[in-house]
């Protein structure tokens, strides 16, 4: 979950909805950290997030993924990324240094409320998984004439 990535809304109901959603995300993430993500100290894989007026880019830095084993889903405005890192040990090899993380990779990202879960693309290149999420078109405020 990342903070500082929310729209400002003066409507109290929307604010409460936003807090509720973020709490749900926090609890959801806390519960998942105890399994697949825990052994990597909760910092692997590293993620970069950037945004423009039109879309959000989520970049995951994980080398040697099998592209057919990458699973990206959206559930309740939470982006779930699951993947499998292929492991390879040379025949009859004795390890001197073992730092790389193999096996299951799991990461969750809470999407901002103006993201469009129906317009998501994913691309894996050079060990970087880039997920692009389009933003919903902003509704224009309607001006009501007072007679």
């Amino acid at each position, binding site marked *: 979950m990342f903070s500082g990535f929310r729209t400002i809304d003066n409507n109290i109901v929307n604010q409460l909805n936003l807090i509720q959603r973020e709490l749900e995300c926090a609890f959801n993430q806390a519960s998942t950290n105890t399994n697949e993500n825990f052994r990597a100290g909760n910092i692997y894989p590293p993620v*970069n997030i*950037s945004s423009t007026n039109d879309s959000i880019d989520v*970049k995951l830095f994980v*080398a040697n993924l099998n592209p057919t084993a990458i699973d990206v889903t959206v559930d309740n405005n939470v982006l779930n990324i699951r993947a499998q890192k292929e492991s390879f040990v*040379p025949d*009859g*090899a004795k390890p001197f240094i*073992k730092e*790389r993380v193999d096996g299951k990779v799991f990461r969750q990202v809470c999407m901002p409320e103006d993201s469009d879960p129906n317009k998501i693309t994913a691309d894996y290149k*050079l060990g970087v998984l880039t997920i692009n999420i389009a933003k919903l078109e902003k509704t224009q405020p309607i001006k009501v004439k007072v007679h």
Partner: protein
Amino acid sequence: MMEIKNKVNETNKKTTLTSLRPLVDVYENTEGVVIMADLPGVDTEQLEIQVEGNVLSLEGIAVIAPAEGAKKELEMTPEGVYKRSFSLGDGLDFNQIDAELKSGLLTIKVPKKVAEVPQKIKVRAA
């Protein structure tokens, strides 16, 4: 001249970028030493492997900058240079190094010198 200018620009870029330490595995088997390094975001064009004496060094620029004009919301991996050096033992043939970069994983194989590889001697039945 242009080539020298490009080289200088590349060197200047490397010195201004953040230094990143890649995660590695190092194995040894009867054939030699295998080094595996996670270098997500690095292209073969941006990767340099050098051997000096028995020290093998690798440097690779991770091209991961967000789109122009994009706002950085979270940055756990900055645009930087992956750097790592390994002091390898004697008995390796540094002229026969094989390196492959695939999906951000660099695999370097340094074979043992022929004399160092255990030779199996066949015994003929008399």
